[in-house]
């Protein structure tokens, strides 16, 4: 576990860099976490992050990757609606890296 100072507030992260308290999330935190990985968040990244957050609000879990791919296809066009594109955006895997920036907990289980 570690904590970071962000805008005067102490924010706790788990061993893998996920937010311990999901209410700590803000746009700024997402940018900050991405910056630590040398990743500049573009509109495309935000499209994914925002969708993950709204899905999470309804279902308390991240969507399966196929649901995410379909959504991206819908909003960003057929050429972007595939896993490869998501891996380009989030090289560490959309399920893990994107969830981390979006402030969602890390998925558990055989995944």
């Amino acid at each position, binding site marked *: 576990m570690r904590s970071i100072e962000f805008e005067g507030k102490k924010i706790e992260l788990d*061993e893998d860099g996920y937010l311990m308290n999901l209410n700590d999330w803000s746009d700024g935190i997402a940018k900050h976490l991405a910056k630590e990985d040398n990743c500049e968040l573009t509109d495309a990244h935000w499209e994914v992050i925002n969708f993950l957050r709204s899905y999470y609000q309804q279902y308390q*879990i991240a969507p*399966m990757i196929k*649901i995410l791919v379909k959504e991206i296809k819908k909003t960003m066009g057929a050429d972007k609606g595939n896993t490869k594109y998501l891996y380009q955006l989030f090289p560490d895997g959309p399920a893990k890296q994107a969830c981390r920036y979006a402030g969602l907990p890390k998925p558990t*289980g*055989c*995944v």
Partner: protein
Amino acid sequence: MTDEKAPATDANAIVQELIKYEKLPYEHVELTGEIKVPKIKPDAMIKVHAQQLTSKDTLERLGYPTKGLIPNWKEVFLKTMDKMLKKYKSVRLFMDICVRCGACTDKCHYFIGTGDPRNMPVARAELMRKVYRRYFTWPGKLFGSKMVDGWDLSIDVLALWYTYFYQCSECRRCAVFCPYGIDTAEITMAAREILNSVGLVQKYQHEIIDKAQVIGNNLGMQQNAVVNALEFVRDELREETGIEEIDIPIDIEGADVLFVTPSADFFASPHIESLYGYAKVFHQAGISWTMSTHASEGGNFGMFVHSYDHMKRINKRIWDAARALKVKRVIGGECGHMWRVLSSFSNTLWGPFDYLDSKYPRPQHICEFTLDLLNRGALKIDKTANAEFTATIHDSCQIARGMEMGGQKYGQFEIPRGVIKGVCEKFVDMPENTIKERTFCCGAGQGLLGDDMLPTRVKGAMPRMQAYSYVKKQNGVNFMALICAICKAQLSKMFPTYDIEMEEVGGIHQLVGRAIVLGAKEGI
């Protein structure tokens, strides 16, 4: 703080320092297609420690201490060990009968991958035997540790236990080669339970054991999320096939079949591709089936520790759902330990299942179900749909070294192979010493699939990767089919780590789903 408590607090601090999780770099081994006995590298993996569970609520629900190592840990350690030795006669027997012949030494994938001598099965078991001889045999009790080459309990012993009993995937390959049949998995399960009782609780598996009991599945998907995922797959299936009737029924009372599968099958890739396959098989067979939001998990991580209470409670959901939905039979999807618990332990946990159809008195495996349909000509198959593949099979350990499938000798080997050969023209087995009862673990079984274990995951996958690269080179194999959710998650991560495309890993029913010709029913 009283003086009495002070040293104990220190003990926790000391052990925490010794088993602290550290993100370590990992590197893969070059693929030559050969599996060689490695040079010994003492302490090669001594720094790899699984993360510990620290959530107080979760620990409380599981019934384990909540603040790390407890003050009276020695007393509780020996008490739990005594309980394990009395309750599980196998564990006591395995403590006594090893003759140190060395047959197991080079059989563990973690030893082959790492060269760490403590990953030799005999050395792993010795961690417990040293304590056993000191405290549970009369010469040890009377004359102390030196007399019996034993160990007095110490923080160092505790740290070694935590380190190396979480570098065993309970795959039981060593047991196949042991002339006495000593099953290291039994020893590891007991050791993990002893560690739990003193407050050293590994995070990955116990977080999941908790979620499976509290929420109902390993992923922690609430019912609305399960329904959303299954409906999504149903809609995709309808769109893809143009068949409006194809369905993934949920909570249908009076269906013939209750189908249970790991929750990863409706969440992760490549797992989900098999779900499409299962649904197509049920649709084409014309058999009424249902999934359950109550029993939304097939897997049972309760088996990884020697607390049958967890295993029993997780398994109960399936039988409660079977009874409530009034089904006639239960079929399980592609999952290793699910199959072992469901087929081998269910009956003594929650049986007898006299409310099921007497023709199907025990749970079936989806491969058993599909092969039967294939053999009867009830499924129309177009093998050209899989023409691009030369497939092989990775026998998952809990199935290969579990009980027979389909009540048939060697069914656990022949039935899954039968299904693959039934839907794919080209099939090649990996070398004999790496398949069937001698199969190698994927490198992440029994609670070692977390990212914290990446160093052992990469090294432990090495024998399997070598065997695959051998048939890839010799026979042009380009698809590894398998029937375990852990293996799928691990290998689809390891393939790219070893510079092979992750798409070369998938479920057997992924191949089935591609080859089934829907609508062209020829009758059962």
